[in-house]
Every structure is written in structure tokens, then in C-alpha cells.
């Protein structure tokens, strides 16, 4: 490695700038998991009986798995003690808010620090925001404007009370409670999240957005997001995440379900920046997330993710291409630095005829991190004329890190066409020198080149998010070249 890169390596580790702790009082459940805790959560949320039963069923299924987490992923961590986690933590309830101004100033300050001042968002960008702190959705902006179009955008708990039929119909319809270990856990103890329904033929006029934040110590966050796009509708949904710096590992096990009816289009973008732990791998979020969409005839589900945070990421946003001519897309940038581990990718399950999927994955590893792409493309027997194209590129910064590619291609139909390509490369020294010769420092050159490398994915993000993602990338890469 050249001298320049050594200098880069010596650059101090950038402080995780979202690592503040907000000091508002929370209303916590006792540590540990039992039927009683599940009942406690359900009671706290004044849930109907059927939902409690649903939770208990999930809990019993989870119990039957004997606390054996899946082990197939290329990640390593000490066994999680599920009895050491607090499963419910809510900011202490205040009287019902009539306007944003009444929001707890501490919470508001938290959002201001996150750069998502609700006021700002409301006034300037026209993004409707649902903010979830620890486990509870705090405030949903823009609700009224949306409701005029018949769009429902609210916290999951509100939806349980206000739209029980919709929830009952769609909850678990894409990710069954028995789907996997973490999905079962989430189904038992989920505390809040967002719900979104776009009626027939409606094009949602603004980006809908949820910011998630884990604040309290020792808690896990288990939110659920459910998006239902009715026939011919369109919605673009954004999700952002941060958490304070803590020495202990915290668990985040979320479930996201997308149901796209005939001709509907759903675009789901994530910028994931949970606390990644420190340089030596101490602390950080375990991010075990199940995200899946089901696409009916002529519908389209598009996942875009920029994953820079979490000490461990285990996440495979997937699409079941059920209807003929449905489309699934997955665009991903996953950056790991220091001791981070990511095992992420997608599953594209082609069931309908003439279905099409595209996978573009860019993995960037620095420090002593390990970054894995894991993906499945399955063409079922009846999925005539289906197409898949996958491109999985890895970029290594330094020789202490690892890049891994595990694509599974299962083709059961002769008229299908499946193409997979993967490359591994590094930032070329000649590219850095070229930039240097034009007066650009090595650090900026690496940022520039890496951003260029990720461009195909950033192009998929809404404008404001793309800018944030680029900045985030620069921050996560600092000190990564060695």
C-alpha cells in the first residue's frame, strides 16, 4: 500500500455523531421474556383479544425453537441471552397532543439532533414522518393531508385500534409468524411501528418516512411495519435508523411486510445507521431484520438500502413475485468497517409468468470487517419467461477485511433467463494518484471513488436521502483504508 493509504489509516476514527442519549423518562417493562411479558405488552397497548392470541401463538412457536438462532449466516457473536433484554420501553405517556408544539421538548430535541426536526420536515420538505423511539411511535405528521386522499399513515398501535380489519387481514400475510426465529420473536413482542395503506388508484403525493431510534439502555427494539398498496396505487417509503453509543450490544429485530396488489408500486428505501460499535467491536446494534414483499400481477416492489451501521446486520429484503408480469428490485450498498459484520442480500422468488427481478449489490469492506452478500434467485416451474439479472460487487479497502459472495440460483423453468455476475476489486492506486494530481486529497479521492462505485444504488434513492447516504458513506469509511 502506498504512503497515502497509510496516512488514511492513521486518521482518527470518526465519532459516531448520533450517539447521544436523550433524557426523557421511559416506562419500561421488567427484563426478560415470558407469556406474562407478552400479555403485559398487549395490555399496555390495550389490544384486542385476537391480537394477544396471535402474539401468544408466535411466542409459543418461538419457544419451540429452543432459543436456537439460525447459524447459517456468516456472522459471529456471543449467544444472546433473551432473558436479559427489556422488551418494552416507552417514553412516559403525556396527555394527548393536539399539535406538534406539545411534543415533549426532550423528544423534539432528539429529533432535532437527528436532523429530522418534525417542524422542518413538515414545513419544508413535505415528507410525512412517523418517528419511533425505542418501541413506541411518537408522532405522525401530515396525517390530515394524507387522509383526504384516503391514505392511512399512522403508528401500528393506532392502526390496531382504528383499522382492526385491515391489520387482521394483512398482519403476517407476507412474513408469517413462524417464518424464522427473529420474525417469531418480533411477532410475540412487537411494540409499535408504522402502518400505511394506499387506496386503489391513489398515488401518494409525498414520501412517507419513519425514523427509528433506540434510546433506552438494555432494551430491544421490535417494530413492525406494514404497507398495503391497493390496486394501481403508488407509494415511496423511507426509513432511517440511529441509536446511542453504548458498550453493550442491543438487539433490533424488526419485521417489514409489503403487500402490493395488482398494478401497485411500492418503493422502500432504508438508510440504516444504527450504532456500529467502537473500533474494537465493543457495543453496537445487532440488526436482525425480516423484510419481505409480495407482488401481485403487474405490480412492482423495489427495495433500496444503504447499510452503514450496526455491529451485525442480518437482513434480506425479499420479493415474492406472485403475479404475472410482477417486478422485484433490490439495490444495496453495505459498508462495513472496523469489526462490523454484515450478511445481507435478497431473495427473489419467481412464481408468476414473465416476472422480472434485478439485484444490484455493492459491498464495501474496510478495517477488520466482514461483508457478505447472500442471495437467492428462485425460478419456479411455472414462471415461464422470467428474468433475473444480478450484479454483486465487492470492494476491499485494506487486507484485514473479508468480502464474501453467496448467491443461490435455483432454476426450474427452461424459458427463464438468469444471469449473475460478481467482481471483487479495490480502489486503484492509479485512480487515487490521478485525483491527487488534480489537487484532491487521498481521503477525498477514496470518498469520491467509492461514491462513484455506489452510484447505481444511490440513483435509486429519493434526492434528500441520496445526499444523506453519501455523507454517511464518507463518515463510515473514515480510517478504513489500511
Amino acid at each position, binding site marked *: 500500500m502506498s504512503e497515502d493509504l497509510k496516512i488514511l489509516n492513521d486518521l482518527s476514527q470518526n465519532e459516531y455523531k448520533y450517539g447521544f442519549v436523550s433524557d426523557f423518562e421511559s416506562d419500561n417493562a421488567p427484563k426478560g421474556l415470558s407469556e406474562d411479558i407478552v400479555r403485559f405488552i398487549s395490555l399496555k397497548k390495550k389490544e384486542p383479544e385476537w391480537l394477544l392470541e396471535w402474539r401468544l401463538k408466535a411466542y409459543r412457536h418461538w419457544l419451540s425453537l429452543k432459543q436456537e438462532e439460525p447459524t447459517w449466516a456468516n456472522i459471529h457473536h456471543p449467544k444472546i441471552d433473551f432473558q436479559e433484554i427489556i422488551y418494552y420501553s416507552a417514553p412516559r405517556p403525556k396527555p394527548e397532543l393536539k399539535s406538534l408544539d406539545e411534543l415533549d421538548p426532550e423528544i423534539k430535541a432528539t429529533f432535532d439532533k437527528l436532523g429530522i426536526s418534525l417542524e422542518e420536515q413538515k414545513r419544508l420538505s413535505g415528507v410525512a414522518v412517523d418517528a419511533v423511539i425505542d418501541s413506541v411511535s411518537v408522532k405522525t405528521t401530515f396525517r390530515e393531508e394524507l387522509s383526504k386522499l384516503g391514505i392511512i399513515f399512522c403508528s401500528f398501535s393506532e392502526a390496531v385500534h382504528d383499522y382492526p380489519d385491515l391489520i387482521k387481514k394483512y398482519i403476517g400475510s407476507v412474513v408469517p409468524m413462524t417464518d424464522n426465529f427473529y420474525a417469531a420473536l418480533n411477532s410475540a413482542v412487537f411494540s409499535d411501528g408504522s402502518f400505511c395503506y394506499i387506496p386503489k388508484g391513489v398515488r401518494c403525493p409525498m414520501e412517507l418516512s419513519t425514523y427509528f431510534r433506540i434510546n433506552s439502555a438494555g432494551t430491544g427494539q421490535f417494530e413492525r411495519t406494514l404497507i398495503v398498496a391497493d390496486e394501481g396505487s403508488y407509494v415511496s417509503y423511507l426509513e432511517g435508523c440511529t441509536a446511542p453509543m453504548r458498550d453493550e450490544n442491543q438487539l433490533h429485530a424488526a419485521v417489514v411486510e409489503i403487500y402490493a396488489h395488482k398494478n401497485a408500486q411500492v418503493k422502500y428505501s432504508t438508510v440504516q445507521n444504527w450504532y456500529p460499535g467502537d473500533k474494537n467491536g465493543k457495543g453496537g446494534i445487532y440488526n436482525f431484520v425480516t423484510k419481505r414483499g409480495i407482488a401481485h400481477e403487474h405490480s412492482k416492489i423495489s427495495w433500496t438500502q444503504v447499510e452503514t451501521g450496526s455491529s451485525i446486520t442480518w437482513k434480506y429484503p425479499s420479493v415474492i413475485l406472485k403475479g404475472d408480469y410482477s417486478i422485484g428490485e433490490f439495490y444495496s450498498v453495505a459498508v462495513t468497517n472496523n469489526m462490523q459484520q454484515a450478511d445481507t442480500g435478497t431473495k427473489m422468488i419467481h412464481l408468476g409468468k414473465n416476472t422480472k427481478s434485478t439485484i444490484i449489490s455493492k459491498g464495501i469492506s474496510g478495517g477488520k470487517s466482514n461483508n457478505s452478500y447472500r442471495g437467492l434467485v428462485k425460478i419456479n416451474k411455472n414462471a415461464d419467461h422470467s428474468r433475473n439479472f444480478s450484479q454483486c460487487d465487492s470492494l476491499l479497502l485494506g487486507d484485514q477485511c473479508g468480502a464474501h459472495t453467496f448467491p443461490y440460483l435455483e432454476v426450474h423453468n427452461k424459458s427463464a433467463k438468469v444471469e449473475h455476475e460478481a467482481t471483487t476489486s479495490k480502489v*486503484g492506486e492509479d485512480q487515487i*494518484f*490521478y*485525483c*491527487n494530481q488534480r*489537487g484532491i486529497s*487521498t481521503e477525498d479521492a477514496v470518498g469520491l471513488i467509492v461514491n*462513484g462505485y455506489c452510484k447505481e444504488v444511490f440513483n435509486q434513492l429519493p434526492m434528500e436521502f441520496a445526499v444523506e447516504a453519501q455523507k454517511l458513506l464518507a463518515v463510515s469509511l473514515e480510517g478504513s483504508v489500511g
Partner: protein
Amino acid sequence: MKENKFKKNSSQALTTQHETRMLSIKNLKASIGEKQILNGINLEIKAGEVHAIMGPNGSGKSTLASVLSGRDVFDVTGGEVLFDGENILDLSPEDRARKGIFLAFQYPVEIPGVSNANFLKTAVNEIRKSKGLEPLDSKDFLVMMKERMKLVEMDKAMTQRSVNEGFSGGEKKRNEIFQMAMLEPKLCILDETDSGLDIDALRIVANGVNALRSKERSFVVITHYQRLLDYIVPDFVHVLYNGRIVKSGTKDLALELEEKGYDWIKEIKADAVEFSNK
């Protein structure tokens, strides 16, 4: 050296002298691995001058360009290079660039996904920052870009494309000159900019260079062929052989070389070596 610096700072007369002498290469030696490539180069370039450096393949022309711009695959084993009176050999490539040394690469690299415009904006503003100037905002930058694009007949689409990615040979070289126009360097080193260009592309590139000639700006034009010098007329021509300048002259020397070939130089060189050994 320290003494020199002191003199420079204390004596008005000396400073003036330094200002006219932009680049001084003194007994420069460089190697790659075990192999010595530059064997003691001496060259003085004053502001506003155009120097052509010619020589057969392997004589060290491109190495000289790389060493001047700070490529670290070469080890400088002796001598010094003064730029505006300051020894630049210990400076990083970006610092040299910020001081005004520009290299038009023989093989410009491709940087996928990074648009030309974004790349240049970053470069222009870093150079401005080093001079204590405010960064250009997007509007001013675009105006500047639009104006300089004309110099090398670039179209707008080219600035939106990724740096050199998928460019033809001619487009790459035009892009180098366009960058030169944008970064406004003091010393421009053209490393075989003419190689692989057809006559039309060569004319465009040469016109761009000529438009950038001024009393303050100097050029080092490295080439294998005399053809380029019909378009960019040099003040001096030097012949490099075995890592040393073996002959210097005016533009007539280039014509003589064209006629007699490099073998002629090799004979002179043989004598010179014998002489120096004695």
C-alpha cells in the same frame, strides 16, 4: 538548501530572479526498484516558455513526468527540483498540483460512477481552498465549465459522463486539456498527449493548448514524434537518452531528429558516455 531559502527571503534581487525561473531541475536521478532510469537531468524552464522533450522509447520521458508530479513508484535517488524556488520533491502529489503543476496523463484512468463535473468541482475547490479562496458555487462553476469546454470542443454530455469511462482515446486526451483549462496551472506537463490521436483530434488538442499559452504559464511537451510540434511550437527542444538530456536546441532540432532518426543521437550519446567516464 536552508541557506538558499534564507537568501531568497531576505534578498529582493534574488526573488526576482527566481520568479522568472519557474522550474529548475538539478542533476535529477530516479529509479524503479533496482533499475536506474533518470541519470542526472538538468533543465531550467522560465515562465511562459514551451519546452519539448523528445527521445526514443525507454529513454525516461514518462518517468520524468511521473517524478515531477510525485508518483511514488519511482524513488528519487539524487538531485533536486525547484518549483518557484521551492524544492518540491518531498511534497505530496496533491500539494504539487495545488501549487500549479499539472500532468496531462499518457493513459488517463477511468473512475466509474464519478462524473467529470463532480470530479472537477472537487479539484477546483480544493485548489482554491489551498489558496485561501472561497469555493465556487455551482452556478459559477457551471459558467466556468461551459466557457472552457469550448476550448477543446467538448459537449455537455461529456462532462456528465464518468471520468474517462468509455471515452475514446481522443476524448480522453481532450478531457485532459479541458481539465488543464479548468485548473489553471502554472506548469503543464503533457505526457505523450499526441500518441494515438488522429490528425483532427491532434488539432483540437493543440488548439486547446495554444489557447492556454501565456506569459505566466510554461509547458513541458513530451513526445515521441515531431508532428505535434508543428502545432505546438516549442521554444526549446531537448533530447533525452538513457535518462539524460544529451542535446538541446531550438525547434530545428526536432526536424533534424525527424530526418535522421534517433540512432544519430545514440552515437552522440556513446561519445558522451565515454567522455564522462574519462
